[in-house]
């Protein structure tokens, strides 16, 4: 194994190793939750640094070559795993998600007597699955990565195992998730059988030939696409495959909900990038209509139902469905653009940028809920936010910031995320431009429920006897990080540009 290949695998190895270390430490030194949190956080920060050092990142930053490193390259030029700018970008996102989820979980799990070690290990396993998805160029690897991502997710959803809601959410998530995995796998099998290879590049070659022939799409391939679309749509919680989302989100312990709303979603988008954009790109004209329809229904339904929710976790669940729709607009912008045109890259760039921004602003929002619920017994009703602006100013300001960012109001990071998606969509034109308009109408409707939270925090008085809120140190650190990211990416031009550049280079790496 060459040095570059080792460096390419190093972040993944670090995360898995960290997970195993946590397990071992827990066996050796049981019930040392703080130690584990500290080690895991430290380890993740090291991983972040390692990812940055390894690269490749825009401007030639990082030890690895710009074009990336592939492992086990076969004759088609496709390795099973690749570390390019897209991988680096996604890895950064995933590790940040892991780090924030971890920080937010500590203060929530402790008062409930839930162990930190298993949580940390499981979370890290899931993140390693996400990282595999971000780098896989082989169908089997992608499937395994997906399973490695979702199986720990099921467990995390049921992590408060003595709580009926948690386990109920977990079993719904698990059953439906397994069902969709089976569907996805069948689709994978059909594509495998049709193309005769598991390697992404080889598949793309075969399909490019099919596309060039302009003959009707083989039924087997079409069915494979259908099954894959369904399976993936489930993972990103696109309507009408979203049913698990609200229940799983509501039932899960709140920090887990935060993780579930971003981790598996962004990872599933990574899967889409590696599978649909990398392998199935030649057929993009065929899957484009479905992306458009999914995007439209997803954001619309998500927002319409979110408007009616009184439970903030459910509300954010539906809102995360809506955000899936927005990200799909980016995908549609890619798919709708002529091959090789700049609009293609812009669509993916927007998708990636959106995903990154969305991950920490949504996590932050859930973290605020979790912080509020640090004292067991606080409900998830939006009403429990009443008067929070007074009771916990930091929490109030942070939550307001996240709500504004989720709404997409400048100059927060969320605004730039939406703006990039719209630029891409308008750029592509046609039906995708219509999606942009629909997206904006949706954003306006969404403002209603996001701002409602602000209404409760600042414009309603706390109920009598509302207990003071104490934010734990880990949570505070996490909140400050995510809030700072939300603001800084919004208002500091060099940072905005840097993140956009990273997303752009990542997108270009894929094309």
């Amino acid at each position, binding site marked *: 194994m060459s040095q570059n290949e080792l460096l390419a695998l190093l972040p993944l190895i670090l995360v898995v190793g960290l997970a195993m270390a946590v397990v071992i430490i827990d066996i050796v030194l049981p019930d040392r939750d703080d130690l584990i949190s500290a080690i895991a956080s430290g380890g993740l920060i090291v991983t972040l640094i390692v990812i940055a050092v390894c690269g490749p990142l825009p401007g030639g930053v990082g030890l690895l070559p710009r074009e990336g490193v592939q492992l086990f390259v076969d004759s088609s030029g496709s390795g099973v795993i690749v570390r390019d700018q897209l991988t680096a970008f996604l890895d950064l996102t995933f590790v940040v998600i892991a780090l924030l989820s971890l920080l937010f979980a500590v203060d929530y799990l402790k008062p409930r007597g839930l162990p930190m070690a298993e949580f940390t290990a499981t979370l890290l396993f899931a993140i390693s699955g996400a990282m595999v998805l971000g780098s896989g160029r082989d169908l089997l690897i992608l499937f395994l990565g997906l399973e490695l991502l979702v199986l720990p997710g099921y467990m995390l959803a049921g992590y408060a195992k003595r709580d009926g809601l948690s386990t109920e959410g977990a079993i719904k998530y698990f059953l439906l998730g397994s069902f969709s995995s089976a569907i996805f796998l069948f689709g994978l099998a059909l594509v495998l059988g049709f193309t005769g290879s598991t390697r992404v590049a080889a598949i793309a070659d075969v399909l490019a030939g099919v596309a060039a022939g302009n003959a009707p799409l083989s039924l087997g391939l079409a069915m494979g696409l259908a099954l894959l679309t369904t399976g993936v749509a489930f993972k990103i919680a696109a309507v009408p495959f979203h049913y698990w989302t609200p229940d799983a989100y509501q039932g899960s312990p709140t920090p887990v909900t935060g993780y579930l709303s971003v981790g598996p979603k962004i990872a599933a988008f990574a899967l889409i990038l590696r599978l649909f954009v990398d392998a199935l790109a030649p057929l993009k004209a065929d899957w484009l209509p479905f992306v458009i329809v999914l995007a439209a229904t997803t954001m619309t339904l998500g927002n319409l139902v979110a408007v009616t929710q009184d439970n903030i976790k459910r509300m954010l669940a539906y809102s995360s469905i809506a955000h899936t729709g927005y990200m799909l607009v980016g995908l549609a912008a890619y798919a709708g653009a002529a091959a090789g045109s700049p609009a293609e890259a812009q669509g993916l760039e927007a998708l990636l940028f959106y995903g990154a921004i969305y991950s920490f602003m949504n996590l932050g929002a859930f973290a605020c809920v979790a912080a509020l619920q640090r004292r067991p017994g606080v409900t998830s009703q939006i009403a429990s936010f009443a008067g929070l602006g007074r009771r916990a100013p930091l929490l109030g300001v942070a939550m307001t910031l996240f709500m*504004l960012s989720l*709404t*997409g*109001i*400048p*100059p927060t990071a969320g*605004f730039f995320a939406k*703006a990039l998606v*719209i*630029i891409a969509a*308008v*750029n592509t034109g046609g039906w995708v*431009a219509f999606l*942009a*308009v629909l997206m*904006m*109408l949706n*954003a*306006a*409707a969404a*403002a*209603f429920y996001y*701002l*409602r939270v*602000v*209404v409760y925090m*600042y*414009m*309603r008085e706390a109920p009598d006897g509302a207990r003071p809120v104490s934010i734990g140190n880990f949570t505070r650190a996490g909140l400050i990080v995510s809030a700072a990211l939300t603001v800084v990416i919004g208002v500091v*031009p060099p940072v*905005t*540009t840097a993140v*956009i*550049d990273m997303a*752009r280079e990542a997108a270009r790496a894929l094309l």
Partner: protein
Amino acid sequence: MDLTGLPLLTGVIFTPLIGALLIAFVPREREALTRWLALGTALVTFAISLLLLPGFDPAATGFQYVETADWIPAFGIQYKLGLDGISLVLVVLTTTLSWISILASFGPIKSRLKEFMISFLILEVGMIGVFLALDLFLFYIFWEVVLVPMYLIIGIWGGANRIYATLKFVLYTLIGSLLMLVAILAAAFSFQAATGSWAGAFDFEQLRGFGFDPTLQFLAFGAFFLAFAIKVPMFPFHTWLPDAHVEAPTAGSVILAGVLLKLGGYGFIRFCLPLFPQAAHEWAPLIIVLSLIAIIYGAIVAMVQPDLKKLVAYSSVSHMGFVTLGIFIFQPQGMQGAILQMVNHGIITGALFLCVGVIYERTHDRTIAKMGGLAAPTPVYAAIFGFFMLASLGLPGLGGFVGEFLVFLGTFDYSPIAAAIASIVVILGAAYLMWMYQRVVFGELSDFLKGLGHHLTDVTPQELVTLTPLIALTLAFGVAPGLILDLIQMPVGEVLARVGGPLTGAAP
């Protein structure tokens, strides 16, 4: 003093932000310090905005004091500021009304003072930014920055039904502005597609010379129109206004009427017309009809309002109808009149809301039916209120008249019948304002007011300080409208040159 080298525009935009940050670090219990710090910031901003005047050359074409810096070069997005006469006038209006509003909220705002002042100063940042931004993206950002503080100001310090009102305000505005964002991006992309580069794609000065495709023009104009029409607000997008005004605290109402509504009119003149001239001609007849409806309709509905603020709110609908009418006849007198009307409406309606606030402070009520006979216990107040009432109904010699007349004049040039319809408001305006004034100020002191006893005091010196500058300005702009007209002559000519002359088409 040579000021040309200083980034004055950046200074005037971000001075309030600095003030807001300072206030953020003031301990909550030091309320007096917070107040004076806020007022001081607003006054400094005002002073900086006045510094713009000596160096401004009214005869020069194009923009002055231009500042440019790259922001997101990948998309050609710039931090680009600049002003012409129109912006200058509106910026000074904004800075003036801002310090007046802050002073006016010294008394009424009793809870969460710190947050209020911070919100208000950020609001000022957004408003000034909108008037100065020359990059469409930057403009949009400032446009939205205005939204949130106003949302909080109405929602936190507002009346009983404030949440309904503030959400309505925000959602309504957002629908328009988000579609405008799509249009901005579409325009930028269209520019990029034609020139092959993102450089200048959001630069107003580049875009306005760029002939957009007619279909794009039509649609983009529609999106811009919706955003601005909601802000103005034009009939039938006006229903958020009465609710917002009724619920907003006095200072909020003043700024809302005084500046926020102007953002829409400014947007029409600055962006809609130069960017999409062809579409402007296609849309103009519809907008003119809507403006005429707004003018008459607002006045008629104002006539039966039981609440003082609602009455003034509907009168705003009517008055802002002149602004859109004046703009969309594409005629120099009309457009100059529209801008003059914006300024004067800002001053006069702002003052009227201050006046209503004065009553409200004493009575905690705004119901016209409960008032009566204020002239006797509060003669100075009655005189000031009467002054602004007369200014609002367009009495010659005061601010409101010249703008209104120029709009009429321009309209008459386009269509005498339209002018005749619009000018019915001369009667209606007199009717609702005088009826209101008669019921509130004349007659015997009402039982309700008698019940207040000695609490019913005349205007305090502090209130006088807020109102006097507005009286002076109202008089000044009535007697010497040239103060403003000279500044806006050149930019109006430029805009009209781009739109391509007066509106033609069938109109008797």
